[in-house]
C-alpha cells in the first residue's frame, strides 16, 4: 500500500466507489490507468475457486503485494448478498501483503460488479504489485472478466461435466489457462485429456496454447505449478507484444461501461411521452435529447 492511502482509507474508498454514480467515478478515478499485472480465476460454483485463489494469493504475496477482489452474486429479489469468501480464506486474515475485498455483483449489466473496472484501478493505484480477480462463471460474465485481466484461468473440477458448459459459454476460446482443481478426485486425467482434445480443435489464440494445470489445495507443489503457468503466460503476453492490445481493450471496455451506465441514468429520467410512437421515433427523440455530459448537477 502506498503512503497516501491507509488500509482504512482504501476500504472506505472502495465502498464509496461501489455506490458511485458516473460523475463520482470520474472525480475519484486515479490519474492514469494502471498497468500492474492482473490474474483472473473464474469457474462454476463449487469447483473450489475461493480456496484456490487464497492459496495462490498467499504464495504470490510472498514476493509482492497482492490485491484480491472476489465477486459474488447479489440476490435479484432483495439486492442483498452473502459474501462468503471470508469463510474459506481464514489464513489470509493475517497476511500483510494480501488484501482481500468481497464485492457483490449488484445490478451490473455484465454480471460482474458495478464499477468493477474502477475498483480494480483503485486497488492498483493503492500500490499493489498484482491484482487477482475471482468471479463465479455465469456465461456472459466471462467476457467482461476477459477484458479486466491479463491472464484468465478457467477453473474446472473432475466429474462436474462443466467442459460442455464451458464450451457453450465460449469459455474454451477465452481462457489462457485451464485449471483442473480437486485433482485428487477420480477423472482428473480424463478431463485434462478431454480439454486438450477440445482445445486442439479450437486452436491457439494469438499464438498462445493454453496449458492444462492440475491443482489441489492439499498439495502445495500444484499451487506452485499454477503460479509458474501464470508467470509463463504473463511473460508471453509481454514478449509477444499482445499486452498492448489487452490494455487497449481494457480501456475501451472501461469507457463503454461508464457510457452505458450514464445512458442508464439518463434513460431513467426520460418522460413516458418519449416512449410513444414507433421504435424509430422513440430512438430518435431520446437520442436527440441525450446530453453527453457526466451528469454533474
Amino acid at each position, binding site marked *: 500500500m502506498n503512503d497516501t492511502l491507509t488500509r482504512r482509507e482504501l476500504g472506505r474508498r472502495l465502498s464509496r466507489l461501489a455506490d458511485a454514480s458516473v460523475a463520482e467515478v470520474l472525480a475519484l478515478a486515479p490519474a492514469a490507468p494502471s498497468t500492474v499485472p492482473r490474474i483472473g480465476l473464474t469457474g462454476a460454483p463449487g469447483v473450489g475457486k475461493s480456496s484456490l485463489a487464497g492459496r495462490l494469493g498467499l504464495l504470490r504475496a510472498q514476493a509482492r503485494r497482492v490485491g484480491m477482489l472476489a465477486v459474488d452474486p447479489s440476490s435479484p429479489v432483495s439486492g442483498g*448478498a452473502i459474501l462468503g469468501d471470508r469463510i474459506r480464506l481464514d489464513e489470509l*486474515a493475517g497476511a500483510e501483503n494480501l488484501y482481500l475485498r468481497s464485492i457483490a455483483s449488484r445490478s451490473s449489466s455484465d454480471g460482474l460488479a458495478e464499477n468493477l473496472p474502477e475498483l480494480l484501478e483503485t486497488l492498483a493505484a493503492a500500490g499493489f504489485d498484482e491484482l487477482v480477480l475471482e468471479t463465479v462463471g455465469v456465461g456472459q460474465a466471462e467476457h467482461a472478466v476477459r477484458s479486466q485481466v491479463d491472464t484468465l484461468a478457467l477453473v474446472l473440477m473432475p466429474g462436474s461435466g462443466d467442459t460442455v458448459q464451458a464450451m457453450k459459454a465460449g469459455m474454451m476460446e477465452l481462457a489462457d489457462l485451464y485449471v483442473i482443481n480437486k485433482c485428487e478426485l477420480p477423472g482428473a486425467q480424463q478431463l485434462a485429456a478431454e480439454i486438450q482434445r477440445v482445445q486442439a480443435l479450437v486452436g491457439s489464440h494469438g499464438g498462445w496454447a493454453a496449458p492444462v494445470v492440475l491443482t489441489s489445495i492439499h498439495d502445495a507443489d500444484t499451487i506452485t505449478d499454477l503460479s509458474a503457468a501464470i508467470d509463463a503466460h504473463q511473460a508471453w503476453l509481454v514478449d509477444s507484444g499482445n499486452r498492448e492490445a489487452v490494455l487497449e481493450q481494457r480501456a475501451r471496455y472501461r469507457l463503454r461501461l461508464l457510457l452505458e451506465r450514464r445512458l442508464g441514468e439518463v434513460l431513467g429520467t426520460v418522460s413516458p411521452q418519449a416512449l410513444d410512437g414507433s421504435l424509430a421515433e422513440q430512438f430518435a427523440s431520446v437520442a436527440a435529447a441525450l446530453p453527453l455530459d457526466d451528469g454533474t448537477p
Partner: protein
Amino acid sequence: MNTSTATAAGNGGTTTPLRGKRILVAKPGLDGHDIGAKVVALALRNAGAEVIYTGLRKSPQQIARVAVDEGVDAVGLSILSGSHRELVRQVVECLRAEDAADIAVFVGGTVPQEDHADLAALGVRGIYTSDQPLAEVIAALAAALG
C-alpha cells in the same frame, strides 16, 4: 442504477431497509456453533444488506482487519460463550487501532440484562438476544445505520 432489482423486489423501500449497507457478521471467541449467526446473516441479506461472514473462532484482530478491508458500515458480533465483555472490548479497541472507531458495533447472542450497560459503555450500538423477532432486529439496525 438499481431500478431492475428494485422492481423485482416489488417494494425496494420498505422490504429492504438495509439496501446498500455492508455488514460484517463475526464470531469471536470459542463458540462451537454458528446457526444463529447464519440465520441473522441470511435475514440481513434478505433485508438488502451485503453481508460478509467470518466463520467460527476469529480473533478480535482478525475481525477488525476484515471490517476495515471490507469497508463495512457495521460489525455484528455473535457471542454465546459468556465472555462477551472481554471480546467486545477487544474488538472495539482493535477497530480504534485501525482508525475505524466509526464502524458501528452490534452484539447478538446470550447477553444477560445486567451486562447491557457495560457493553453500551464500550460503544456498542445495539444488543439483541435470541428471543427477539428478526424483524425487530432488522428495524433497529436500519434505524441505527440511517
